[in-house]
């Protein structure tokens, strides 16, 4: 009985306020799409970081006879110097940070070089001896490369210690900026959505002020009076958030999986449906909660006794 009555009130409220309800739907749709997009971007950044940082190593380049930078003096790093670096890497102070160490000889470096630049001619210009020997260090925690750089840079025969992660930073900075922009837009749109929901509910309450007055007079409980209005707001924003969820799934399906995955290099790790399906419930729940709160605040002043 009561449930039917409340739902009937919700229905008539929505019908009476149709244009406002449509605008609430659209605004929540757009704002939550931005929210979802920024969450997806953050997830993408996290996933790419995970992928690339695992592969990014700290490289300890040893001197060759043509190097003058670092600790080099146009002399090839000696066996002793290489051993000293190796010893340092194995020492108790550094060992806990290190996952794996590989040594790359001149020949291996040359092979890698040839592979990477297979379509250019460098015969004669580049010789195995002009490429640095190096230690390739995989860290347990890639964030702690500074420890290695500090303790190894000063050693004799070391040309430089490089964190390959540095090459990736600009990419992540761009992605981060994009995601913060999306969050900013989403925030503004959410403010608009909240205000719009509050206004819609006030209008709805105003058009039903006779009923409200009588309800209060005959002793309808506050909960009974406010529930239809809150449901009205939640219903409108729920439609918006479901649309936003659909948009997020569509973005992942058609843009990320359909377009980016075919355009970018094969080994780029991209988001999949699992991530999209994780975002959708977040959007729906937050949309509904937001509407419930703002509608509740908007209606509360009609409940003052």
């Amino acid at each position, binding site marked *: *009985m009561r449930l039917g009555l409340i739902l009937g009130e919700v229905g008539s409220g929505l019908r009476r306020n149709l244009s406002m309800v449509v605008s609430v739907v659209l605004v929540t749709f757009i704002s939550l799409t931005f929210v979802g997009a920024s969450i997806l971007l953050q997830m993408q950044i996290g996933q790419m970081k995970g992928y690339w940082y695992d592969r990014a190593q700290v490289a300890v380049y040893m001197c060759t006879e043509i190097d003058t930078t670092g600790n080099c003096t146009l002399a090839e790093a000696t066996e002793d110097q290489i051993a000293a670096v190796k010893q340092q890497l194995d020492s108790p102070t550094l060992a806990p940070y290190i996952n794996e160490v590989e040594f790359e000889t001149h020949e291996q470096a040359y092979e890698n070089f040839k592979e990477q630049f297979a379509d250019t001619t460098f015969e004669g210009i580049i010789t195995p001896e002009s490429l640095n020997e190096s230690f390739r260090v995989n860290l347990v925690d890639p964030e702690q490369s500074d420890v290695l750089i500090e303790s190894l840079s000063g050693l004799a025969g070391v040309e430089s210690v490089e964190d390959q992660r540095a090459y990736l930073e600009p990419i992540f900075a761009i992605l981060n900026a994009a995601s913060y922009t999306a969050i900013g837009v989403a925030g503004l749109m959410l403010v608009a959505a909240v205000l719009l929901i509050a206004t819609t509910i006030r209008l709805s309450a105003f058009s039903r002020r*006779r009923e409200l007055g009588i309800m209060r007079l*005959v*002793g309808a*409980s*506050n909960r*009974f009076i406010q529930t239809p209005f809150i449901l009205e707001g939640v219903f409108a924003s729920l439609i918006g958030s479901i649309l936003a969820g659909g948009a997020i799934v569509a973005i992942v399906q058609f843009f990320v999986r359909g377009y980016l995955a075919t355009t970018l290099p094969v080994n780029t790790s991209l988001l999949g449906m699992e991530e999209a399906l994780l975002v959708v419930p977040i959007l729906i729940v937050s949309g509904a909660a937001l509407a419930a709160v703002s509608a509740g605040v908007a209606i509360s002043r009609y409940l003052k*006794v």
Partner: protein
Amino acid sequence: MIRFDSVSKSYPGTTRPALNSVDLEILKGEFVFLVGASGSGKSSFLRLILKEENPTKGSIHVLGQHLNTLSSRKVPYFRRNLGVVFQDFRLLPNKTVFDNVAFTLQVIGKSRGFIQEAVPDALKMVGLAGKSNRFPHELSGGEQQRVAIARAVVNKPAIMLADEPTGNLDPATAAGIMTLLERINLGGTTVLMATHDAGIVDQMKRRVIELIGGQIVRDELQGGYQTQTVPTQGRIPHPAASKPASAASTATQSPARPMASPSSQGEGLDA
């Protein structure tokens, strides 16, 4: 039933209080007229009983509840014991007579079965048994007021408040409404009616409480719209002197203290 202990009510922005130190007791089953010029505090009085307003000073007890301390969460449940009727009926135009009356029961969560029984009973009681499917605009003013009364009594309230219920009605129709209110009163409901209708008050011979400028200047059993005794000419009532014989027991000495007519009383207070 209803007790006011030196209740004052001032609205913000005015220096003159709407009610000034009102002491009053209304017992179960009484029929009380509240008379006085516009602005004398009648409506404030009714609003205080409904707890639509809180008193500035003093304490109010209604139906054993201390209204000053009644939490706003409990106010709705308190109001279910009161029935209210207004001059302008306040019916919902888009609902039928039946639905208007049923609405009050629906919103306080009564069962469908209860509503199906109680609403026809209430409509029969007010003499509208055959019109339950009409809409308010299809009814005459008197019939609309009967619908409003049916709505007020359908939940069997202990107290019925009526704010000028006959104000919009012709004398014959008003008399019909009064008969109805009298019958409701006979059923044990305390009726408190604010009115300007001198004829009705004089005819009914019920307890009359007269308010002037927020003070009770007269409280007599079986009184008329104006006091029956000859007013003493030129007597300026002192505010303290006009303190009413508040409790019903003291009000039994009828006629009460001689008083000037409302108009001259008003001037006296202003002087």
